[in-house]
């Protein structure tokens, strides 16, 4: 077998790595706009689904246009509030990176709110959620009715939770448990929604069933809701009074 000197091996690997790096960064740069567009459409779709619009998305041919139009039509307002519930000017709600905001101290956070106006003029408020699951990030959107306590819709998504276990959080049966639950108790204390191992009492307005075998994801989801919605408590209270 032919032998190669160390210098040759060194030069060979250096050239190879540089070529590969150039090629990959070039492609990544070229494809970025398409990928960002996909992410944007998906985010809009998530927001729409949290208020039960676009359920028939699977049957639509041109999804991008459909989502853009439905979003324009239904999501009438979006704004950013801070921890004291005051409106923050000059920040676009859609572009807020919630993960980065959660890393800041509570007072500095920009908290996005999206508003869906129903045909009769009722306003539904949509709040984004962001947290850590077992294997990777989990996120979602919760929409609240005008009393700022009753859940109107909930959707959750995940990057790499275990299929059949933690990954169940993005299924209809799991998400529909949240409908009609309340995040405040009768005395006005913030309770969030607990995820109960072994089954929640159906009459309990502040709890849902955990997923069997998906304990860590279930608990992560509970913490995510408590932390993310917790930021808005003052805003919710001001709004409902």
């Amino acid at each position: 077998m032919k032998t190669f000197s160390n210098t040759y091996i060194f030069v060979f690997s250096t050239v190879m790595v540089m070529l590969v790096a150039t090629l990959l960064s070039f492609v990544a740069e070229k494809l970025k706009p398409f990928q960002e567009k996909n992410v944007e459409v998906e985010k809009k779709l998530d927001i729409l689904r949290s208020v039960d619009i676009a359920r028939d998305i699977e049957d639509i041919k041109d999804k991008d246009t459909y989502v853009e139009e439905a979003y324009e039509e239904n999501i009438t307002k979006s704004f950013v509030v801070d921890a004291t519930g005051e409106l923050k000017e000059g920040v676009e709600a859609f572009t807020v990176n919630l993960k980065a905001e959660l890393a800041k101290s509570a007072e500095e956070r920009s908290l996005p709110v999206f508003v869906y106006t129903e045909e009769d003029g009722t306003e539904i408020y949509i709040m984004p959620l962001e947290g850590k699951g077992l294997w990777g990030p989990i996120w979602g959107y919760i929409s609240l009715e005008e009393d700022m306590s009753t859940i109107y819709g909930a959707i959750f998504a995940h990057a790499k939770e275990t299929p059949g276990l933690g990954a169940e959080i993005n299924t209809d049966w799991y998400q529909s448990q949240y409908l009609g639950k309340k995040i405040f108790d009768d005395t006005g204390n913030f309770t969030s929604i607990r995820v109960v191992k072994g089954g929640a009492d159906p009459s309990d307005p502040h709890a849902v069933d955990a997923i069997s075998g998906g304990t860590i994801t279930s608990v992560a989801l509970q913490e995510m809701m408590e932390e993310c919605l917790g930021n808005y408590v003052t805003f919710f209270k001001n709004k409902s009074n």
Partner: protein
Amino acid sequence: MKEREPLFSTKNLNLLREPLNDSNPITVQVLGICSALAVTVKLKPSVVMAISVVAVLAVSNVVISLLRKSIPPRIRIIVQLTVIATMVILVDEILQAFAYDVSKQLSVFVGLIITNCIIMGRLEAFALANKPWPAFLDGVGNAAGYGVILIIVAFFRELLGSGTVWGYPVFEKLGLYTTGYVNNGLMILPPMALIVVGIIIWVQRAKNRKLIEEK
């Protein structure tokens, strides 16, 4: 002077044909099982996965074959990995840009093509010692052998597990549900993929006597 071998000589065609049956990577060599279990719940991701593997393996095989005389043997595995990883990242980026839904369903398994033993195996066993054209055919053949099994498994799992084919509700249109038929939920879970692969191996061996080992 040696006569030039025709592009599609019997020898070359066998490179394409054999992995589809006699030396199928999944059913005979039992390689690449992990992804075969994971992505075969629905037909569409399986087909995308199969195409991705064809692209990765064919191109990697050709690149390694072209470089075979200049790759220092001491770092050949690293070079192979770099080529495969580059191809996989390209495929992943393209899927994210133009087939976002499918890329989300395939999630980590596109990235895991890198660790698919079929690919490293073909580069090491074939591309390093052969010319680019046979290497290309070998790559396409082996990836297709993998893909065919993936698609067969996915077809049955989607049909029996969800009652659909490529998302089209076959059983519903046939009116099967009104007779009390229920989808088999087990088909959606990974263990059933293993059992389906097992059945395919059984059928293949029953038909192809060459594969049965002498006692």
